[in-house]
C-alpha cells in the first residue's frame, strides 16, 4: 500500500535518471562479481563446455570397433578381410565364427560385424543377386550403426572396384564437395553452437536466479519502493549480465578460433551484433521466469526446462530441425537459440551472409521484446 501511495505522490521522481541508473548498475555489478558462483558460470563453465565440445562430443565415428567374421577360407576372402583392417575408420577384430562376435555386440564391445560367407568366392564369380557379405550392426546406437553400415559398404565397394580392372565404369558417379567444412569435422559445427548454449546459461539461468533471489528474500519489493523506476531497476539488474555474457562470448570465440582451430570467416562486428541481439531474448526470458517463479528452486527448474534444454535440443545445434515432426518444428520457432545457432554456424564457417542474419536478428529481437513485455506486466502487477 505504501508503494502505491508513494508512486502517486512523487511521479516526477520515477522518471529515468542516468545517475541513479549508474549507481544501480554499480551495485548490481559488485553483487554479481562478489559471488564466486557467477564467475564459475561465466568463465569456467564456458571453457569446460568448449573443451568438451571440442574433444568429447564428437559425431565423427573414428576407430569404430567392428568384427570381421571370415567364414570362407579362400584367398580373395582373405584379401577383403585385409582391406578391412587397412581402413582408418574401423578398428577391426577378426573371428572365424559368428558366435564369437554376437556376444560382443550385446555387451557393446563391438558396434557391428561383417560376415564374409562360406560361399563368398562363388557369389563373387556368379554375378547373381546374392549379396557378397552380410553386415550386422548394433542398432541400439542408431547413428553409429549408420556409420558402420556406410563404412563397411564403402570398404567392400572400393575393394571390388580395385579387383575388376577391366569392368565397365559406374554409370553415375557423385563427386561430393563439402563446403565450409571440407574436413568434415563435427567439432567445427558444434563449437559455434556451443557458444549459444553458454550464452543461454548466462543470460537466462543466471538472471532468473539473481532476480528470483531478490523476490524470495523480499528485497525486490524494497528496491521497487525506492524512487528508482521499474525500467531503471530492470536495466540496472540486466546490464551487468549483458556485459558478462558478451565478455564470455568474446572469450569463447577467441578460444574457438585460437585453440580449437575453428575459422571465423565472417566479421567480428557481425559476431558481436548477433550476440548482443541474442542477449535480449535470453535476458528477457530470465527476467520473465524470475518474475513468475519468485523462488530460486522454481526459477532454476523452469530455466533448465525452458531455457537450457531447448537451447540444447531444439536449436539445431546437435539435432537437425528438419528431421523433427511438424508440431515440434513449429515449437522451435519460439526458441531464440535456434536463430542464434544458425547465425553462429554461418558467421564462423561461411562468412557474413546477411540473408541469413537479418531474418534471424529480427526473430530474436521480436521474441525478446515479447518476453520483456510480459515480464514488465508481471512485475508491475505485483505492486498493486
Amino acid at each position: 500500500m505504501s508503494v502505491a501511495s508513494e508512486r502517486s505522490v512523487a511521479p516526477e521522481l520515477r522518471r529515468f535518471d542516468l545517475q541513479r541508473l549508474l549507481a544501480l548498475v554499480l551495485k548490481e555489478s559488485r553483487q554479481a562479481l562478489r559471488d564466486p558462483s557467477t564467475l564459475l558460470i561465466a568463465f569456467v563453465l564456458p571453457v569446460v563446455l568448449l573443451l568438451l565440445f571440442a574433444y568429447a562430443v564428437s559425431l565423427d565415428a573414428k576407430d569404430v570397433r567392428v568384427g570381421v567374421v571370415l567364414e570362407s577360407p579362400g584367398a580373395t576372402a582373405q584379401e577383403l578381410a585385409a582391406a578391412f583392417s587397412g581402413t582408418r575408420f574401423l578398428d577391426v577384430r577378426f573371428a572365424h565364427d559368428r558366435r564369437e562376435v554376437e556376444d560382443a555386440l550385446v555387451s557393446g564391445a563391438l558396434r557391428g560385424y561383417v560376415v564374409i560367407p562360406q560361399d563368398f568366392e562363388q557369389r563373387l564369380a556368379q554375378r547373381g543377386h546374392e549379396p557378397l557379405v552380410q553386415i550386422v550392426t548394433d542398432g541400439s546406437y542408431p547413428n553409429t550403426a549408420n556409420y558402420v553400415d556406410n563404412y563397411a559398404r564403402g570398404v567392400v565397394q572400393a575393394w571390388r572396384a580395385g579387383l575388376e580392372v577391366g569392368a565397365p565404369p559406374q554409370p553415375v558417379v557423385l563427386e561430393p564437395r563439402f563446403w565450409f567444412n571440407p574436413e568434415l569435422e563435427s567439432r567445427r559445427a558444434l563449437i559455434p553452437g556451443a557458444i549459444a548454449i553458454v550464452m543461454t546459461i548466462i543470460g537466462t539461468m543466471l538472471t532468473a536466479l539473481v532476480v528470483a533471489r531478490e523476490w524470495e528474500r523480499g528485497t525486490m519489493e524494497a528496491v521497487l519502493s525506492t524512487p528508482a523506476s521499474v525500467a531503471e531497476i530492470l536495466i540496472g539488474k540486466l546490464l551487468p549480465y549483458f556485459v558478462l555474457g558478451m565478455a564470455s562470448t568474446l572469450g569463447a570465440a577467441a578460444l574457438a578460433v585460437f585453440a580449437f582451430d575453428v575459422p571465423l570467416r565472417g566479421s567480428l562486428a557481425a559476431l558481436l551484433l548477433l550476440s548482443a541481439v541474442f542477449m535480449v531474448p535470453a535476458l528477457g526470458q530470465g527476467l520473465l521466469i524470475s518474475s513468475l517463479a519468485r523462488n530460486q528452486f522454481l526459477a532454476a527448474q523452469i530455466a533448465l526446462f525452458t531455457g537450457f534444454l531447448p537451447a540444447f535440443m531444439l536449436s539445431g545445434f546437435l539435432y537437425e530441425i528438419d528431421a523433427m515432426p511438424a508440431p515440434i518444428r513449429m515449437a522451435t520457432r519460439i526458441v531464440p537459440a535456434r536463430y542464434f545457432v544458425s547465425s553462429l554456424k554461418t558467421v564462423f564457417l561461411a562468412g557474413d551472409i546477411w540473408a541469413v542474419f537479418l531474418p534471424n536478428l529480427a526473430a530474436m529481437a521480436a521474441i525478446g521484446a515479447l518476453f520483456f513485455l510480459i515480464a514488465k506486466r508481471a512485475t508491475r502487477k505485483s505492486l498493486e
Partner: protein
Amino acid sequence: MAGSFFSFTRLRAQFIKEVLSVLRDPRSRMVVFVPPILQLLVFAFAATLEVRNVEIAVYSQDGGQWSHELVQRLDSARFIRRVHRVDDPQRMHAMIDRGEVIAALSIPGDFSRAIAAGGSGKVQVLVDGRRSNSGQITVAYLSAIAADVGAEVTPGAQAPAPAVTRHWFNPNLTYRWFIVPGLTGILALFSSLLITSLSIARERELGTFDQLLVSPTSTPEIIVSKSLPALAIGTALGLFMVAAGVFGFGIPFTGSFALLLASLVLFIASVVGIGLMISAVSMTQQQAILGAFAIGVPAVLMSGFATPVENMPLVLQWLAQAIPLTHFLVIVEGSFLKALPPGEALASLWPLALIALATLSLATFFVRGRLQ
C-alpha cells in the same frame, strides 16, 4: 546419549519435513513432475540424428534421359521434402549459403551422352558442411539413388550388391528407441541433483541450518533425511519415464526389470551423494544451483548420450567411467533393447555401486565438516 545417535521417530519426522519442503508448494510440486514428463514427450520426437524432410537443389545443364531419371528419383525419395530446380549456378550457391538446401546437385551438359557412350556421368554434389553429420548421411542416401540409376543403365550386367545389412536390436534404426531410455536417466539426474543440492543450501540461506544444529538430530539422521526424498522422487520419476517408454512409446523392453530397478536406485543414490556434496560447500541456493549445473551439464555431455563414449579421446573415456550416468545408460539402453544378460549388467552395476559408495561417503564427510 546412546539413544540420541539414531532414532527412527526423529528420522521419520525429519524425512516428512524434507519431503514437505520440496512438495508443499503446489508450484514446486508441479515443477518437480510436470516439466520432466513434458520434456520426455518433446525431446523423444525432437532429438534425432536421422535425416528427413530435407530440401535439395538441382542445377541441370543436361536435357537427356538420364538426368531426367535422376531428378525423378530425387523427387520421389522419401527423405527429401522438396527438390528445387534452379537454372543458374549463382542461385544454387546462394541457396547453400542461406541454408535453404542441404545439398545441391550440378549435372553437367554431357551427363546423358557420357552414360550412353558407356562412360561415367559425373555429378557434382555441393554439401552444406555446417551440417556435417546430416550432410554425410545425405550423401550416402544420394549415392544409393545414383546406384539405382546406374543399375537401370545396365540392367543385364548387374554386379551383386556389395552387402546386405541387418540392424540388430532396432531394425529400423528408430532414433527414439535410443533417446527415450537415455532421457529417463538424464531427467531423473537433473531433478534429483537439484533437489539435493538445494537441501542444505536452502537451510543455510534461510538461517534454519543453525536451528538444525542445536536440535537433537544427529549427522547420519540429517544425511539420511536429506537424501531419502530426492532418492524417492528421482526413482519415482525414472520409473514413470520407463513406463512411458514402454507403454506410451511402445519401445520393446526385453531385459530384467528387477535389474533395472536396482541400478536406477544405485544411480540416483550416487547422484544424491554428488548433490549433497555440492550443497555442503555452497553458501547460498544460487551457488548450489549453479554448482549442480556446472557438474550436471558436463556429466551429461560425457556420458555417451549425445555422442558415443568411444568417439572421445582415451583420457576422457576414463573420466567418463567416473560418471554414474555413463554406466546407467549402458544398463537402461541394454535393458530396453538388448535383453541385457545379468552378467553384462553386473559389469556396469558394480562401478555404479562403487561410485554411489564413494559419493555418499564423501557427502557424509563434507556434511559432517559443515556441522562442526
